[in-house]
């Protein structure tokens, strides 16, 4: 994907010379660090990497990277990135978008890039608010969210990014948290390794307009009991020392949170539900969980076990460079000669 240069670059080498202009304390800072680290881990090059973004706080991301970058227009980054990949499929393309950029104005392009399966990564910074325009409700905002455009509280049901992506046919759907840097970095490496569109929802705290909206599961103190890291082939355990787990009842089609162990009212580990990242319905089920009833699922919810040729590969297959003589098509069909 990326050409290798002489000596591998460090995370810092991926920082641009521009002063970072997010609000102090914004979750975007952590994500920026995570991405820079992941790129270093991947051995990416500056010249072979492009960040494409729409508009929003999140979308300022490319300015802070020393790679190529295109800060485009609101909601359209997936479409622009698709064109870019078709023009130049050797580039490693990352789309950075927000919950408004990606799921409000840009919902259609997100749907189509996901179902087409263009070979790129999409990072959706979900802060459940419109940051840049000063705090209006976003499509991921929960019912009741009070904002300047919903002073009585939002009445619209939110869209869940992961469920949306699964419904759209995405072949890699994962979740991370801005401040879980280690996990974020590793997840980005996985996302990058996936052949096709990798969709990563990152819970990002907007300190100014929606501070703490994810604290129920991101607060270090509560996280053990309210987050579950899902891993393929492993039983779904969480809580302090994995004292809790999930079971699935195929009669009711519901998940249940149980105490893991051998005591009474406890469920042994081998009866827990085992994560199968190749099942879309399971991913849907896990993705729907929300505190306080359930833990929030983090990690790779779904990954296609057999990725086929990506859209860009399939569409470009066998296309030669331009320049062949046009005389064949021009003279196909009937021609006649007028002589002097």
């Amino acid at each position, binding site marked *: 994907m990326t050409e290798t240069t002489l000596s591998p670059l460090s995370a810092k080498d991926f920082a641009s010379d521009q002063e970072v202009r997010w609000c102090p304390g914004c979750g975007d800072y952590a994500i920026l660090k995570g991405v820079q680290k992941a790129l270093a881990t991947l051995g990416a090059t500056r010249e072979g990497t492009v960040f494409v973004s729409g508009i929003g706080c999140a979308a300022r991301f490319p300015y802070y990277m020393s790679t190529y970058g295109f800060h485009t227009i609101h909601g359209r980054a997936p479409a622009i990135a698709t064109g870019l990949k078709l023009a130049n499929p050797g580039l490693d393309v990352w789309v950075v978008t927000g919950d408004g950029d990606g799921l409000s104005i840009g919902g259609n392009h997100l749907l189509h890039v996901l179902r087409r399966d263009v070979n790129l990564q999409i990072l959706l910074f979900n802060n459940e608010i419109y940051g840049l325009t000063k705090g209006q409700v976003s499509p991921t905002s929960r019912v009741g969210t009070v904002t300047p455009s919903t002073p009585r509280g939002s009445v619209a049901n939110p869209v869940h990014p992961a469920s949306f992506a699964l419904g759209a046919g995405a072949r890699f759907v994962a979740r991370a948290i801005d401040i879980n840097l280690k996990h974020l970095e590793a997840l980005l490496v996985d996302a990058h390794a996936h052949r096709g569109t990798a969709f990563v929802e990152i819970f990002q705290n907007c300190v100014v307009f929606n501070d703490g909206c994810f604290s129920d599961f991101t607060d270090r103190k509560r996280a053990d009991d309210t987050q579950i890291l899902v891993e393929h082939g492993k039983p779904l355990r969480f809580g302090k020392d994995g004292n809790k787990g999930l079971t699935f009842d195929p009669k009711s089609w519901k998940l249940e949170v149980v105490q893991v162990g051998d005591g009474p009212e406890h469920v042994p580990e081998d009866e827990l539900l085992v994560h199968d990242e190749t099942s879309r319905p399971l991913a849907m089920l896990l993705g729907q969980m929300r505190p306080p009833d359930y833990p929030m699922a983090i990690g790779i919810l779904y990954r296609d076990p057999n990725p086929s040729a990506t859209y860009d590969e399939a569409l470009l297959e066998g296309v030669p460079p331009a320049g062949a003589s046009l*005389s064949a098509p021009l003279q196909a069909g009937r021609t006649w000669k*007028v002589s002097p």
Partner: protein
Amino acid sequence: MSKASLPQANGGSPSRERLDAVVVRFAGDSGDGMQTAGTQFGIQAALSGSDISTFPDYPAEIRAPAGTTYGVSAFQVHFGSQDVKTAGDDVDVLVALNPAALKVNVGDLRLGGTIVLDTDAFSDRNLAKAGYAANPLDDESLAPYVILPLDITTQTLRAVEAFELSTKEATRCRNMWAIGLALWMFDRERQATINWVQKKFEGRGNIAEANVAALNAGHAFGETAEMPSTGATAAWTVDPAELPPGLYRTVSGTEALAWGLTSGLASSGLERMIFASYPITPASPLLHALTRMRDHGVVTFQAEDEIAAACAAIGAAYGGALGVTSSSGPGIALKGEAIGLAVGAELPMIVVNSQRAGPSTGMPTKTEQSDLFQALYGRNADSPVAVLAPATPTDCFEVGREAVRVATKFMTPVYILTDAYLANAAEPWRLPDLDALPSFPAEFRTDPEGYHPFIRDPETLARPWVRPGTPGLEHRIGGIERNADTSHISYDRENHDRMTQIRAERIQRIANHISEQAIEQGESSGPLLVLGWGSTFGAISKAVERARHAGRPVSQAHLRWLWPFPRNLADLLAGFERVLVPENNAGQLVQVVRATFDVGAVGLNRVTGRPFRIREIEAAIDAALDAQPKEAAR
């Protein structure tokens, strides 16, 4: 004098009248194969040395119920020994295969024109479906015309009897019978059509032979004088046209544009074109045509909507490919914001608009020139772009090339304004010498020394194009205003004023790299200039030609470049007392001309879903010449 090298049709019979040009229209049901018939007749006419101009007219409905007026499909062929520049004002010969076809088309027939009709189709049921209260063959309504009522269905079925087709299949051969007759009527060869039929139906059993038999039967029907006696001639000769020597083919505007863009791609040296489009009438055929140019580095991307199509073209341009997007008016409206990004980020891009009648959905299959304003001004803020328009189907080739050249040289969006008429109309095309076409290699910067994204070429004011992947030139661009000197994001007041001027000036400087405006016909100064653009070219040319023939002091100029204007245009216009601007819109170019130059320009504006008739322009020329100068200037 030049002559076609093809074998000549058998000589005209002594009773044949000689004509300079004829307009024939084939009309029938959507399922009757009228488009095929017309196309073949047109090609055969061209092969026999005529100049031609053809135009299809098909229904908006996909497959409307048989026999209804809104299911009528027609194809018009204008051919002649002279410069044929339009599909023809009036129809000379109408071939109508059912009552609905007669009803819809008879109004376009000239008084005294000829109607060939299939009496077998004039059943009560079909008459009712067409909305005829009484059979027009039985009353006086067709009195102004010469009627040839023939039992075409019966004749066709008889001709193909031997091939044991189903009745449906056999009846479908009617179009061939009709062509056969028409070829006889105009004294044309039919071998090329026979060859085509055989190729087209190859491997489909008897169908090919049946069609050939029907064609021959129609021809023989004329030849053997089975024609009913009407007291009027039904056989004519049209001499071959005097065309410049060369290798010819017929071409539609869509084909020529597809090839022009592809040729431009090759001349630019770019590796790939990303043609991103969302289907819409009448623009879809360009998508279809370019889909077939894969071997020439053309990748077509059917996007999820017009916005995505524009954005994909922009992404492609950012990636170093030729980005092209195409649509019709309503779709172009959706692209405005995205094209603004290409203006702000200064990326090359081609936007093709196959204009159609509006507003809103309007009349999707009908032509109009009403998107000039949208091209010039249909984006937020001051966002100048280049706009050009082809004048004829063949001109689309050159315009396609020109758009590629200018977009890549000046790093700017370039609009091509074609329309439903040009897209579908066809005419003979003398194939260009491909090797002699000039190349205009696009340049990519690779040198990091002193680079910033908006550093400019002092002459063109274009910024450098950099392909991502180039080491050392990593940069970030976007739609936010930039400092002219450093390329950093800037909210500085004077800088924005300066950048706004630079953006306008860069587009103006294109005028230094395009041809000066020529006078098509007439003197370079005088009382009246007819100034046109786009698909009105044919009608204007003919009208000016006729007026000049009648001794009227009128000249013609036709703009390919609508923005920037050619740099001599001010002087050229200053040479005329009045300027008449015929447009198929409510008055758009005329407004820009009045605003830009000190010239008394008046519009001639008609929006009827088809190009002007020649006589409409002739009348306006007369009126303009006869009007008081003062009046004309308002």
